[in-house]
């Protein structure tokens, strides 16, 4: 066995893999939220839809997205494997147990499983629809002099599913037209269903609990524990990752439902 497999298959190494993939997924949440905040722009989805094209065509982002898909799968499968091992370490339980440790820290596997189901549903709603579904197209016409944008639902013949964005200039009228798949209208449609909105909101609460323990636990596993920066890790874990980010994500479906 090479030194690397020996290290990574030790109990500490196995946890390091969970910590690295988990913290990487945390960093993704920040990027994902920043992009999604464009849904709140009252521009008929112009900013969001053009951003979507950028995110699905930029080669660097595409590469990172494959790392992301792998991390999600790995973190989930590896987490369940570790939970199975941990259960095996105590074949017979206690008749009475006080269960020390926070509720979140004791239930990471269950919380993680719910999040995994959520991710599958979420990818089905948007990623699959965008890639393989039949989304309507929208043409945004921007006046180059005033910057005013008008949106018209279109379905030009020349469009196939492969075409992500078509940009045309009309010099005579001084306008720029961009035709893109309308993922914004897909969000509007999906979040008009109250049950789906409730599922999204609950999932974000679950995500908050998962990160309440997960974020700071990742640093501890990597050996990053020091009185100088522990308070910062704890504060960021609680206020940013367990509260702010899940809350902001949860607001999106609710915003579309009541809009």
């Amino acid at each position: 066995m090479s030194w690397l497999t020996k290290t990574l298959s030790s109990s500490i190494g196995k946890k390091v893999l969970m910590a690295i993939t988990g913290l990487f997924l945390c960093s993704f949440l920040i990027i994902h939220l920043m992009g999604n905040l464009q849904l709140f722009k009252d521009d008929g989805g112009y900013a969001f839809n053009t951003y979507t094209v950028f995110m699905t065509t930029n080669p660097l982002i595409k590469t990172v997205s494959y790392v992301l898909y792998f991390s999600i799968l790995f973190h989930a499968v590896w987490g369940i494997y570790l939970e199975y091992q941990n259960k095996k370490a105590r074949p017979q339980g206690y008749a009475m147990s006080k269960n020390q440790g926070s509720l979140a820290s004791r239930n990471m596997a269950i919380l993680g499983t719910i999040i995994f189901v959520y991710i599958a549903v979420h990818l089905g709603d948007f990623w699959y629809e965008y890639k393989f579904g039949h989304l309507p197209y929208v043409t945004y016409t921007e006046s180059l002099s005033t910057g005013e944008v008008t949106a018209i639902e279109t379905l030009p013949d020349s469009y196939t599913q492969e075409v992500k964005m078509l940009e045309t200039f009309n010099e005579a009228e001084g306008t720029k037209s961009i035709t893109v798949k309308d993922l914004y209208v897909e969000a509007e449609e999906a979040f008009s269903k109250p049950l789906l909105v409730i599922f999204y909101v609950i999932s974000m609460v679950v995500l908050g609990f998962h990160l309440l323990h997960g974020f700071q636990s990742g640093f501890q596993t990597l050996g990053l524990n020091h009185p100088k920066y522990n308070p910062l890790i704890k504060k960021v874990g609680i206020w940013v990752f367990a509260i702010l980010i899940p809350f902001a994500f949860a607001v999106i479906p609710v915003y579309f439902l009541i809009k």
Partner: protein
Amino acid sequence: MDLKLKVWRQKNAEDKGGLVEYQLNDIEGHMSFLEMMDILNEQLISEGQEPVSFDHDCREGICGACSMHINGEPHGPDAGTTTCQLHMRKFNDGDTIFIEPFRAKAFPVIKDLVVDRSAFDRIQHAGGYISVNTSGNTQDANSIPVPKVNADKAFDAATCIGCGACVAACKNASAMLFVSAKVSQFALLPQGEVEAKDRALNMVKQMDAEGFGNCTNTGACEAECPKGISLENIARLNREYLSASVTTDH
């Protein structure tokens, strides 16, 4: 006070075992938990029954021999206390007390409340020591300067009595707090530096071989440790292990 005890009875390692209820009257608050167990055993012997087996030795909280999972907690409800130092005044008249052995695959039950904790001994043998020349020219330890902060941390880690409460409390039956204390007490001192890398690698290897679970940083061990060993030690063990992994020649 009068108490109802639910005690785990198990004849041997193969026996399935189960909780047996006993009524014990006129227990005084000044008694230690083990003295209460002694009285239970006197009562059982006088009734012609087999007394309850349990581990004990110094009865002053420093040897790490006593164990028992009392009302859902290793060493019972009092913080920073071993079972032998737990007073019966922590309980009330009419209470029902659950008394179970420490539970872990790596700590198999031998009989009743006695579990085999020799896994800890084997982990210690794997690296929980320093090599000192004893041929007459042993250096005085005080001649090697040690920063005060490191000496304090090493001492705090060295207060681990190896009782196994961390394993018993952990939902994963992980031994990380024990191993981290044993690694830390040497890693922080110049005398321990020589063997620091192999110590971290070998003790973790033995810990994994014994079948303990993986640490998920719930902090249950720290909360239940009778000696208050800090989670900071687990982070240090992680650092020691990972840095040893990438810097040793083997």
